[in-house]
Protein backbone atom coordinates (compact mmCIF):
# COMPACT_ATOMS: atom_id res chain seq x y z
CA UNK A 1 0.00 0.00 0.00
CA UNK A 2 2.97 2.29 0.57
CA UNK A 3 3.45 2.80 -3.15
CA UNK A 4 -0.09 3.97 -3.64
CA UNK A 5 -1.65 7.22 -2.58
CA UNK A 6 -1.88 7.66 1.18
CA UNK A 7 -5.05 6.51 2.94
CA UNK A 8 -7.96 9.00 2.94
CA UNK A 9 -7.50 9.79 6.61
CA UNK A 10 -4.16 11.17 7.83
CA UNK A 11 -2.96 11.61 11.43
CA UNK A 12 -1.36 14.64 13.05
CA UNK A 13 0.52 13.86 16.27
CA UNK A 14 0.93 16.93 18.46
CA UNK A 15 3.19 16.70 21.46
CA UNK A 16 4.95 18.99 23.87
CA UNK A 17 8.11 17.18 22.81
CA UNK A 18 9.47 16.81 19.30
CA UNK A 19 11.01 13.45 20.21
CA UNK A 20 7.69 12.10 21.46
CA UNK A 21 5.79 13.23 18.35
CA UNK A 22 8.42 11.83 15.99
CA UNK A 23 8.71 8.62 17.99
CA UNK A 24 4.97 8.08 17.83
CA UNK A 25 5.05 8.66 14.06
CA UNK A 26 7.80 6.03 13.75
CA UNK A 27 5.91 3.55 15.89
CA UNK A 28 2.56 3.99 14.17
CA UNK A 29 4.18 4.19 10.73
CA UNK A 30 5.80 0.80 11.15
CA UNK A 31 2.37 -0.74 11.48
CA UNK A 32 0.56 1.44 8.95
CA UNK A 33 2.91 2.41 6.14
CA UNK A 34 0.07 3.57 3.92
CA UNK A 35 -1.05 6.38 6.18
CA UNK A 36 0.27 9.94 6.09
CA UNK A 37 1.53 10.56 9.64
CA UNK A 38 2.72 14.02 10.58
CA UNK A 39 4.60 14.98 13.73
CA UNK A 40 4.16 18.44 15.25
CA UNK A 41 6.14 18.35 18.47
CA UNK A 42 8.05 20.93 20.45
CA UNK A 43 8.61 24.60 19.82
CA UNK A 44 10.18 26.13 16.71
CA UNK A 45 13.62 26.05 18.31
CA UNK A 46 13.29 22.42 19.37
CA UNK A 47 12.41 23.13 23.00
CA UNK A 48 9.52 21.72 24.99
CA UNK A 49 6.15 23.21 24.11
CA UNK A 50 3.82 23.34 21.16
CA UNK A 51 4.13 25.50 18.09
CA UNK A 52 0.97 26.93 16.62
CA UNK A 53 2.67 27.31 13.24
CA UNK A 54 3.96 23.74 13.20
CA UNK A 55 0.52 22.34 14.08
CA UNK A 56 -1.14 24.57 11.49
CA UNK A 57 1.32 23.44 8.81
CA UNK A 58 0.89 19.76 9.70
CA UNK A 59 -2.90 20.02 9.60
CA UNK A 60 -2.73 21.77 6.22
CA UNK A 61 -0.50 19.03 4.84
CA UNK A 62 -2.70 16.32 6.37
CA UNK A 63 -5.91 17.54 4.72
CA UNK A 64 -4.33 18.31 1.34
CA UNK A 65 -5.56 16.31 -1.67
CA UNK A 66 -9.02 16.01 -0.11
CA UNK A 67 -7.94 13.93 2.87
CA UNK A 68 -9.45 14.13 6.35
CA UNK A 69 -7.35 14.05 9.49
CA UNK A 70 -7.46 12.94 13.10
CA UNK A 71 -5.31 14.91 15.54
CA UNK A 72 -3.87 13.29 18.65
CA UNK A 73 -2.38 15.54 21.30
CA UNK A 74 -0.65 14.74 24.55
CA UNK A 75 -0.57 17.36 27.32
CA UNK A 76 -3.05 20.18 27.85
CA UNK A 77 -1.28 22.87 25.88
CA UNK A 78 -0.93 20.58 22.88
CA UNK A 79 -4.70 20.11 22.95
CA UNK A 80 -5.28 23.85 23.36
CA UNK A 81 -2.97 24.67 20.48
CA UNK A 82 -4.64 22.11 18.22
CA UNK A 83 -8.07 23.52 19.12
CA UNK A 84 -6.87 27.06 18.40
CA UNK A 85 -5.57 26.02 15.01
CA UNK A 86 -8.92 24.48 14.10
CA UNK A 87 -10.81 27.52 15.42
CA UNK A 88 -8.90 29.80 13.09
CA UNK A 89 -8.69 27.40 10.17
CA UNK A 90 -10.77 27.67 7.04
CA UNK A 91 -14.17 26.06 7.84
CA UNK A 92 -13.67 23.61 4.98
CA UNK A 93 -10.45 22.43 6.61
CA UNK A 94 -11.84 22.40 10.15
CA UNK A 95 -14.82 20.29 9.05
CA UNK A 96 -12.48 17.52 7.93
CA UNK A 97 -10.41 17.38 11.12
CA UNK A 98 -11.22 15.83 14.49
CA UNK A 99 -9.24 15.99 17.71
CA UNK A 100 -9.28 12.59 19.41
CA UNK A 101 -9.78 12.29 23.14
CA UNK A 102 -7.35 9.41 23.29
CA UNK A 103 -4.09 8.23 24.85
CA UNK A 104 -1.31 9.54 22.63
CA UNK A 105 0.71 6.46 21.74
CA UNK A 106 -1.97 3.79 21.93
CA UNK A 107 -4.46 6.04 20.16
CA UNK A 108 -1.99 6.84 17.39
CA UNK A 109 -1.24 3.17 16.76
CA UNK A 110 -4.90 2.13 16.78
CA UNK A 111 -5.95 5.05 14.57
CA UNK A 112 -3.08 4.48 12.12
CA UNK A 113 -3.87 0.80 11.65
CA UNK A 114 -7.55 1.56 11.16
CA UNK A 115 -6.75 4.36 8.71
CA UNK A 116 -4.46 2.03 6.81
CA UNK A 117 -7.44 -0.18 6.06
CA UNK A 118 -9.07 2.76 4.27
CA UNK A 119 -11.52 3.58 7.05
CA UNK A 120 -13.38 6.89 7.10
CA UNK A 121 -12.87 9.76 9.55
CA UNK A 122 -15.42 8.59 12.12
CA UNK A 123 -14.00 5.09 12.24
CA UNK A 124 -10.41 6.29 12.61
CA UNK A 125 -11.50 8.66 15.37
CA UNK A 126 -13.39 5.86 17.10
CA UNK A 127 -10.35 3.58 16.89
CA UNK A 128 -8.21 6.22 18.60
CA UNK A 129 -10.74 6.93 21.30
CA UNK A 130 -11.50 3.26 21.89
CA UNK A 131 -7.80 2.75 22.59
CA UNK A 132 -8.38 4.69 25.81
CA UNK A 133 -10.51 1.91 27.24
CA UNK A 134 -8.17 -0.87 26.17
CA UNK A 135 -5.72 -0.37 28.99
CA UNK A 136 -8.10 0.51 31.78
CA UNK A 137 -8.50 -3.06 33.00
CA UNK A 138 -11.39 -3.85 30.70
CA UNK A 139 -10.88 -7.40 29.70
CA UNK A 140 -11.54 -8.53 26.19
CA UNK A 141 -15.00 -9.99 26.24
CA UNK A 142 -14.93 -13.79 26.09
CA UNK A 143 -16.30 -15.41 22.99
CA UNK A 144 -19.98 -16.12 23.07
CA UNK A 145 -20.83 -19.63 24.06
CA UNK A 146 -20.60 -22.04 21.19
CA UNK A 147 -23.81 -21.82 19.28
CA UNK A 148 -25.36 -24.28 16.90
CA UNK A 149 -23.75 -24.74 13.51
CA UNK A 150 -26.51 -22.91 11.61
CA UNK A 151 -26.21 -19.61 13.51
CA UNK A 152 -24.58 -17.89 10.51
CA UNK A 153 -21.16 -17.84 12.17
CA UNK A 154 -18.25 -19.22 10.15
CA UNK A 155 -15.70 -20.80 12.42
CA UNK A 156 -12.13 -21.91 12.15
CA UNK A 157 -9.13 -22.75 14.27
CA UNK A 158 -5.46 -22.41 13.56
CA UNK A 159 -2.25 -22.71 15.57
CA UNK A 160 0.23 -19.85 15.72
CA UNK A 161 3.51 -20.89 14.11
CA UNK A 162 5.76 -17.87 14.24
CA UNK A 163 8.04 -17.72 17.30
CA UNK A 164 6.83 -14.41 18.74
CA UNK A 165 3.14 -15.10 18.20
CA UNK A 166 0.60 -12.33 17.74
CA UNK A 167 2.89 -9.41 18.54
CA UNK A 168 2.57 -5.93 17.10
CA UNK A 169 3.53 -6.59 13.48
CA UNK A 170 1.37 -9.69 12.90
CA UNK A 171 -1.51 -8.09 14.79
CA UNK A 172 -1.32 -5.14 12.45
CA UNK A 173 -1.15 -7.44 9.44
CA UNK A 174 -4.29 -9.24 10.59
CA UNK A 175 -6.24 -6.07 11.32
CA UNK A 176 -5.25 -4.54 8.00
CA UNK A 177 -5.89 -7.65 5.96
CA UNK A 178 -9.36 -8.15 7.40
CA UNK A 179 -10.37 -4.57 6.66
CA UNK A 180 -10.66 -5.65 3.01
CA UNK A 181 -13.53 -8.04 3.78
CA UNK A 182 -17.14 -7.31 4.54
CA UNK A 183 -16.99 -9.47 7.63
CA UNK A 184 -16.84 -9.16 11.40
CA UNK A 185 -14.03 -11.32 12.73
CA UNK A 186 -13.34 -12.35 16.30
CA UNK A 187 -10.18 -14.17 17.36
CA UNK A 188 -10.38 -15.83 20.76
CA UNK A 189 -13.19 -13.36 21.48
CA UNK A 190 -11.14 -10.29 20.53
CA UNK A 191 -12.26 -7.96 17.75
CA UNK A 192 -9.75 -8.73 14.99
CA UNK A 193 -10.20 -5.27 13.46
CA UNK A 194 -8.46 -3.87 16.53
CA UNK A 195 -4.73 -4.32 16.60
CA UNK A 196 -4.72 -3.49 20.30
CA UNK A 197 -7.27 -6.16 21.17
CA UNK A 198 -5.28 -8.70 19.17
CA UNK A 199 -2.04 -7.78 20.91
CA UNK A 200 -3.75 -7.92 24.27
CA UNK A 201 -4.57 -11.60 23.71
CA UNK A 202 -0.88 -12.27 24.31
CA UNK A 203 -1.08 -15.29 22.03
CA UNK A 204 2.29 -16.96 21.44
CA UNK A 205 3.73 -19.74 19.34
CA UNK A 206 1.73 -22.95 19.71
CA UNK A 207 -1.43 -21.22 20.93
CA UNK A 208 -4.62 -22.09 19.11
CA UNK A 209 -6.63 -19.22 17.68
CA UNK A 210 -10.37 -19.75 17.55
CA UNK A 211 -11.84 -17.77 14.70
CA UNK A 212 -15.48 -16.70 14.46
CA UNK A 213 -16.67 -14.69 11.49
CA UNK A 214 -19.99 -13.14 10.55
CA UNK A 215 -20.97 -11.25 7.44
CA UNK A 216 -21.33 -11.70 3.67
CA UNK A 217 -17.62 -12.47 3.17
CA UNK A 218 -17.17 -14.50 6.34
CA UNK A 219 -15.72 -17.59 4.70
CA UNK A 220 -13.24 -15.62 2.59
CA UNK A 221 -12.09 -13.63 5.60
CA UNK A 222 -11.60 -16.78 7.66
CA UNK A 223 -9.65 -18.50 4.89
CA UNK A 224 -7.38 -15.50 4.42
CA UNK A 225 -6.71 -15.27 8.16
CA UNK A 226 -5.99 -18.99 8.47
CA UNK A 227 -3.61 -18.80 5.51
CA UNK A 228 -1.70 -15.85 7.00
CA UNK A 229 -1.32 -17.55 10.36
CA UNK A 230 -0.17 -20.79 8.72
CA UNK A 231 2.43 -18.88 6.77
CA UNK A 232 3.72 -17.57 10.07
CA UNK A 233 3.30 -13.96 8.88
CA UNK A 234 6.48 -14.38 6.92
CA UNK A 235 8.45 -14.94 10.13
CA UNK A 236 9.09 -18.68 9.81
Amino acid at each position, binding site marked *: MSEREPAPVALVLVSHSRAIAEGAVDLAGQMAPGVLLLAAGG*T*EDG*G*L*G*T*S*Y*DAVEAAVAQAVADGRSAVVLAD*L*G*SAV*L*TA*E*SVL*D*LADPDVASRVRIADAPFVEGAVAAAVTAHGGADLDRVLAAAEHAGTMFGGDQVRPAAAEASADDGVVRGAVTLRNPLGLHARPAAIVARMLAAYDAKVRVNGANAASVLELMKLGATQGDELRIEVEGPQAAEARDALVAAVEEGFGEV
Partner: protein
Amino acid sequence: MTLDVAWAVDWVRRSADAVAEHREELIELDRQIGDGDHGENLNRGFTAVVAKLDALEEPPGEIGDVLKLVATTLMSTVGGAAGPLYGTAFLRAAKATAVPELDTKGVVALLEAALEGIVVRGKARTGEKTMVDAWTPASEAAAAASDAGASAAEALEAAAQAAADGAQATIPLVATKGRASYLGERSAGHLDPGARSTELILQAAAQAAA
Protein backbone atom coordinates in the same frame (compact mmCIF):
# COMPACT_ATOMS: atom_id res chain seq x y z
CA MET B 1 -12.48 60.31 27.99
CA THR B 2 -12.01 57.44 25.58
CA LEU B 3 -9.08 55.13 24.92
CA ASP B 4 -7.52 55.13 21.47
CA VAL B 5 -5.16 53.00 19.41
CA ALA B 6 -2.15 54.66 21.05
CA TRP B 7 -3.49 53.40 24.38
CA ALA B 8 -3.71 49.86 23.00
CA VAL B 9 -0.14 50.02 21.71
CA ASP B 10 1.06 51.44 25.03
CA TRP B 11 -0.83 48.68 26.90
CA VAL B 12 0.91 46.02 24.86
CA ARG B 13 4.36 47.56 25.33
CA ARG B 14 3.79 47.96 29.07
CA SER B 15 2.63 44.35 29.26
CA ALA B 16 5.83 43.24 27.56
CA ASP B 17 7.89 45.31 30.01
CA ALA B 18 6.01 43.89 32.99
CA VAL B 19 6.38 40.31 31.80
CA ALA B 20 10.10 40.85 31.18
CA GLU B 21 10.54 42.42 34.59
CA HIS B 22 8.65 39.60 36.34
CA ARG B 23 10.02 36.80 34.18
CA GLU B 24 11.95 35.17 37.02
CA GLU B 25 9.03 35.48 39.41
CA LEU B 26 6.64 33.81 36.94
CA ILE B 27 9.17 31.06 36.28
CA GLU B 28 9.51 30.43 40.00
CA LEU B 29 5.73 30.41 40.58
CA ASP B 30 5.30 27.96 37.72
CA ARG B 31 8.18 25.83 38.92
CA GLN B 32 6.40 25.34 42.24
CA ILE B 33 3.19 23.93 40.79
CA GLY B 34 3.67 23.55 37.03
CA ASP B 35 6.45 22.95 34.56
CA GLY B 36 8.35 26.19 35.12
CA ASP B 37 8.07 27.65 31.64
CA HIS B 38 5.40 30.33 32.10
CA GLY B 39 7.76 33.29 32.56
CA GLU B 40 10.07 32.20 29.79
CA ASN B 41 7.25 31.45 27.36
CA LEU B 42 5.30 34.61 27.99
CA ASN B 43 8.44 36.74 27.78
CA ARG B 44 9.32 35.15 24.45
CA GLY B 45 5.79 35.82 23.21
CA PHE B 46 5.61 39.47 24.24
CA THR B 47 9.12 40.13 22.96
CA ALA B 48 7.93 38.89 19.57
CA VAL B 49 4.80 41.05 19.82
CA VAL B 50 6.88 44.18 20.45
CA ALA B 51 9.13 43.31 17.51
CA LYS B 52 6.06 43.11 15.29
CA LEU B 53 4.73 46.42 16.58
CA ASP B 54 8.12 48.02 15.91
CA ALA B 55 8.06 46.69 12.37
CA LEU B 56 4.69 48.25 11.52
CA GLU B 57 5.03 50.99 8.92
CA GLU B 58 2.07 52.91 10.29
CA PRO B 59 -0.09 52.49 13.39
CA PRO B 60 -3.19 50.31 12.95
CA GLY B 61 -6.52 52.04 12.51
CA GLU B 62 -8.48 50.16 15.15
CA ILE B 63 -7.84 48.87 18.64
CA GLY B 64 -8.86 45.42 17.48
CA ASP B 65 -6.02 45.45 14.92
CA VAL B 66 -3.48 45.82 17.74
CA LEU B 67 -5.09 43.08 19.82
CA LYS B 68 -5.26 40.73 16.85
CA LEU B 69 -1.54 41.17 16.26
CA VAL B 70 -0.98 40.29 19.92
CA ALA B 71 -3.24 37.23 19.60
CA THR B 72 -1.66 35.69 16.53
CA THR B 73 1.87 36.40 17.71
CA LEU B 74 1.33 34.90 21.17
CA MET B 75 -0.24 31.79 19.64
CA SER B 76 2.73 31.29 17.36
CA THR B 77 5.52 32.02 19.79
CA VAL B 78 4.58 31.21 23.39
CA GLY B 79 4.79 27.44 23.18
CA GLY B 80 2.96 26.58 26.40
CA ALA B 81 -0.72 26.63 27.34
CA ALA B 82 -0.51 30.41 27.83
CA GLY B 83 -0.14 30.80 24.02
CA PRO B 84 -3.55 29.50 23.01
CA LEU B 85 -5.17 30.83 26.18
CA TYR B 86 -3.95 34.44 25.91
CA GLY B 87 -4.07 34.13 22.13
CA THR B 88 -7.77 33.26 22.19
CA ALA B 89 -8.43 35.93 24.83
CA PHE B 90 -6.83 38.65 22.68
CA LEU B 91 -8.49 37.32 19.54
CA ARG B 92 -11.96 37.51 21.09
CA ALA B 93 -11.10 40.90 22.54
CA ALA B 94 -9.99 42.05 19.09
CA LYS B 95 -13.33 41.07 17.58
CA ALA B 96 -15.11 43.08 20.30
CA THR B 97 -12.99 46.18 19.67
CA ALA B 98 -13.07 46.77 15.92
CA VAL B 99 -13.25 50.52 16.60
CA PRO B 100 -10.72 53.37 16.78
CA GLU B 101 -11.74 54.38 20.33
CA LEU B 102 -13.19 52.70 23.41
CA ASP B 103 -15.51 54.20 26.00
CA THR B 104 -16.25 52.54 29.34
CA LYS B 105 -18.70 50.09 27.81
CA GLY B 106 -16.09 49.24 25.22
CA VAL B 107 -13.60 48.38 27.96
CA VAL B 108 -16.18 46.12 29.58
CA ALA B 109 -16.86 44.44 26.25
CA LEU B 110 -13.12 43.91 25.71
CA LEU B 111 -12.66 42.25 29.10
CA GLU B 112 -15.79 40.13 28.82
CA ALA B 113 -14.72 38.89 25.38
CA ALA B 114 -11.24 38.06 26.65
CA LEU B 115 -12.64 36.14 29.61
CA GLU B 116 -15.00 34.27 27.31
CA GLY B 117 -12.08 33.30 25.08
CA ILE B 118 -10.12 31.90 28.02
CA VAL B 119 -13.10 29.98 29.32
CA VAL B 120 -13.90 28.55 25.89
CA ARG B 121 -10.29 27.51 25.30
CA GLY B 122 -9.34 26.32 28.77
CA LYS B 123 -12.75 25.00 29.84
CA ALA B 124 -11.97 26.19 33.35
CA ARG B 125 -14.34 27.77 35.85
CA THR B 126 -13.61 30.01 38.81
CA GLY B 127 -12.12 28.26 41.83
CA GLU B 128 -9.93 25.89 39.81
CA LYS B 129 -6.75 27.90 40.41
CA THR B 130 -6.25 29.26 36.90
CA MET B 131 -6.11 32.62 35.16
CA VAL B 132 -9.92 32.51 35.10
CA ASP B 133 -9.76 33.38 38.80
CA ALA B 134 -8.16 36.72 37.90
CA TRP B 135 -10.04 37.46 34.66
CA THR B 136 -13.51 36.82 36.09
CA PRO B 137 -13.40 39.36 38.95
CA ALA B 138 -11.62 41.81 36.64
CA SER B 139 -14.41 41.63 34.09
CA GLU B 140 -17.08 41.90 36.80
CA ALA B 141 -15.37 44.86 38.46
CA ALA B 142 -15.17 46.74 35.17
CA ALA B 143 -18.87 46.11 34.55
CA ALA B 144 -19.75 47.32 38.05
CA ALA B 145 -17.63 50.43 37.59
CA SER B 146 -19.32 51.10 34.27
CA ASP B 147 -22.76 50.83 35.90
CA ALA B 148 -21.60 53.32 38.51
CA GLY B 149 -20.67 55.82 35.81
CA ALA B 150 -16.89 55.34 35.85
CA SER B 151 -14.59 56.46 33.03
CA ALA B 152 -12.80 53.94 30.82
CA ALA B 153 -9.58 54.47 32.77
CA GLU B 154 -11.38 54.03 36.08
CA ALA B 155 -13.00 50.83 34.86
CA LEU B 156 -9.55 49.46 33.93
CA GLU B 157 -8.18 50.50 37.31
CA ALA B 158 -11.02 48.60 39.01
CA ALA B 159 -10.36 45.60 36.77
CA ALA B 160 -6.64 45.58 37.57
CA GLN B 161 -7.30 45.77 41.31
CA ALA B 162 -9.85 42.96 41.11
CA ALA B 163 -7.41 40.83 39.09
CA ALA B 164 -4.76 41.36 41.78
CA ASP B 165 -7.20 40.33 44.50
CA GLY B 166 -8.33 37.38 42.43
CA ALA B 167 -4.75 36.25 41.89
CA GLN B 168 -4.00 36.42 45.62
CA ALA B 169 -7.15 34.40 46.26
CA THR B 170 -5.76 31.51 44.20
CA ILE B 171 -3.10 30.84 46.87
CA PRO B 172 -5.17 28.55 49.12
CA LEU B 173 -6.93 26.84 46.20
CA VAL B 174 -6.28 23.28 45.09
CA ALA B 175 -5.76 23.19 41.33
CA THR B 176 -8.22 21.07 39.36
CA LYS B 177 -7.32 22.33 35.86
CA GLY B 178 -4.04 22.69 34.04
CA ARG B 179 -0.64 21.22 34.80
CA ALA B 180 -0.86 22.13 38.50
CA SER B 181 -3.81 19.75 38.89
CA TYR B 182 -1.39 16.82 38.73
CA LEU B 183 -0.17 17.96 42.16
CA GLY B 184 -3.63 17.77 43.72
CA GLU B 185 -3.63 18.95 47.35
CA ARG B 186 0.01 19.94 47.13
CA SER B 187 -0.89 22.80 44.80
CA ALA B 188 -2.51 24.66 47.72
CA GLY B 189 -0.41 27.42 49.23
CA HIS B 190 0.96 28.67 45.92
CA LEU B 191 -0.01 31.64 43.77
CA ASP B 192 -1.18 30.56 40.31
CA PRO B 193 1.28 31.87 37.71
CA GLY B 194 -1.42 32.42 35.06
CA ALA B 195 -3.48 34.48 37.50
CA ARG B 196 -0.36 36.47 38.37
CA SER B 197 0.48 37.20 34.72
CA THR B 198 -3.15 38.23 34.16
CA GLU B 199 -2.77 40.69 37.00
CA LEU B 200 0.40 42.11 35.39
CA ILE B 201 -1.24 42.50 31.99
CA LEU B 202 -4.35 44.20 33.35
CA GLN B 203 -2.19 46.48 35.51
CA ALA B 204 -0.39 47.49 32.33
CA ALA B 205 -3.75 48.27 30.72
CA ALA B 206 -4.73 50.50 33.63
CA GLN B 207 -1.34 52.25 33.72
CA ALA B 208 -1.51 52.96 29.99
CA ALA B 209 -4.91 54.59 30.52
CA ALA B 210 -3.96 56.61 33.59
